C-alpha cells in the first residue's frame, strides 16, 4: 500500500490498522471532546446520527448523550454481528471501534455553532427574514452543505468498524449494519428522551 493509499485508509477505514484496544480509548477521547464542544455550542447529539442546536444543559448531559449513542450502536453491532458472523468476535472490537467511528461528530458539533436556530423559517422559504439576514442564511446553507459529507463520513466509518470487527461484507454485511443502525437510532432516541430530557432546559 502506497503513502496515498495509507492516508485514505486511515481516513476511511482506520480499523484496518487499529484494533479495538486502541480504538476504544481514542474514541472515548473524541466522545469527551465532542461533549465539551456540544456543551459550548448547545449542539445536542440526541440520536446515533443526530446533531441539533437545542437548549442549554449541564456538561454531563451532553457527555451522557454521546455515551448513550455510542453504547446503543455498539450493543446492536455486537448482538447482530455476533448472530450473523461466522468469525469469533471480540467485544472490545465491536464496541471500541464504534467509539472511534464517532470522531467526525466533533467537527459536526463545531459547525453547528455557526447556525442560528432563528434561521429555520428563512431556510424553509430560502428567503432572508428580519431575524435572519442574507449572511446568516447563507452561513446556515453552507453549514448544512458541509454537514452532508460529515454525515456520510460518519456512517462510512461506522460501517467499516462493523465490517472489520464482525468480518461481514457484501449484502449480508450491509443489511446487518443497517438493521443495527436503525435499532440503535430508535433506542438511543428513546433513552435520551426518558433519561436525559428532564435535565435539559426549556
Amino acid at each position, binding site marked *: 500500500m502506497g503513502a496515498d493509499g495509507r492516508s485514505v485508509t486511515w481516513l476511511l477505514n482506520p*480499523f*484496518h*490498522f*487499529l*484494533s*479495538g*484496544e*486502541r480504538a476504544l480509548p481514542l474514541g472515548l477521547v473524541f466522545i469527551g471532546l465532542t461533549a465539551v464542544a456540544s456543551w459550548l455550542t448547545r449542539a445536542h447529539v440526541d440520536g446515533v446520527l443526530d446533531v441539533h442546536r437545542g437548549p442549554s444543559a449541564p456538561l454531563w448531559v451532553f457527555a451522557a448523550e454521546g455515551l448513550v449513542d455510542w453504547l446503543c450502536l455498539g450493543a446492536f453491532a455486537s448482538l447482530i454481528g455476533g448472530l450473523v458472523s*461466522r*468469525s*469469533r468476535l*471480540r467485544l472490545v*472490537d465491536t464496541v471500541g471501534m464504534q467509539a472511534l467511528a464517532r470522531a467526525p461528530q466533533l467537527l459536526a458539533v463545531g459547525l453547528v455553532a455557526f447556525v442560528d436556530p432563528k434561521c429555520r423559517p428563512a431556510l424553509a422559504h430560502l428567503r432572508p427574514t428580519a431575524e435572519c439576514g442574507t449572511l446568516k442564511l447563507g452561513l446556515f446553507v453552507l453549514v448544512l452543505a458541509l454537514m452532508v459529507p460529515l454525515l456520510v463520513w460518519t456512517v462510512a466509518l461506522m460501517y467499516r468498524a462493523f465490517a*472489520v*470487527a464482525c*468480518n461481514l461484507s457484501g449484502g449480508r454485511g450491509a443489511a446487518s449494519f443497517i438493521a443495527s443502525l436503525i435499532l440503535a437510532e430508535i433506542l438511543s432516541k428513546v433513552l435520551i428522551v426518558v433519561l436525559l430530557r428532564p435535565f435539559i432546559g426549556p
Partner: protein
Amino acid sequence: MAENKLPTACPSCRSALVVTRLRCRTCASAVEGEFGLGVLARLEDEEQALVLRLVKSSGSLKDLAAEYGVSYPTIRNRVDALIDRVKQIEKELARAAKESGHGR
C-alpha cells in the same frame, strides 16, 4: 535466479493440474508418474506466506497482526478467509479424486 511459480490450475479449463515428471538436479535422474499437489501447494503465494508467518508466530494472531502492521480483526479476517479457501480446495481435491477413481 527466482524459480518459476508452480501452476496449479489448467490455463485452458481451470481444472486442477497434477505433476507427472520429477527430475533430480544432481544426477538428472527422472521419475514419471502422477503426483497430486497438496492443499498448501495450491494456495496463492500471499496465502502461503500467511500460513508460514502464522506458524512462525506460533499461531499468535496478535503477533501476526503486529508483523503485518494491521489490526487484530483485520488479520483474523484474513485467516478466516484462508480457512474458507483451504476448505474449498479440500472439497475440490476430494471431488477430483472421486471422479478419477483414485480415492486419494
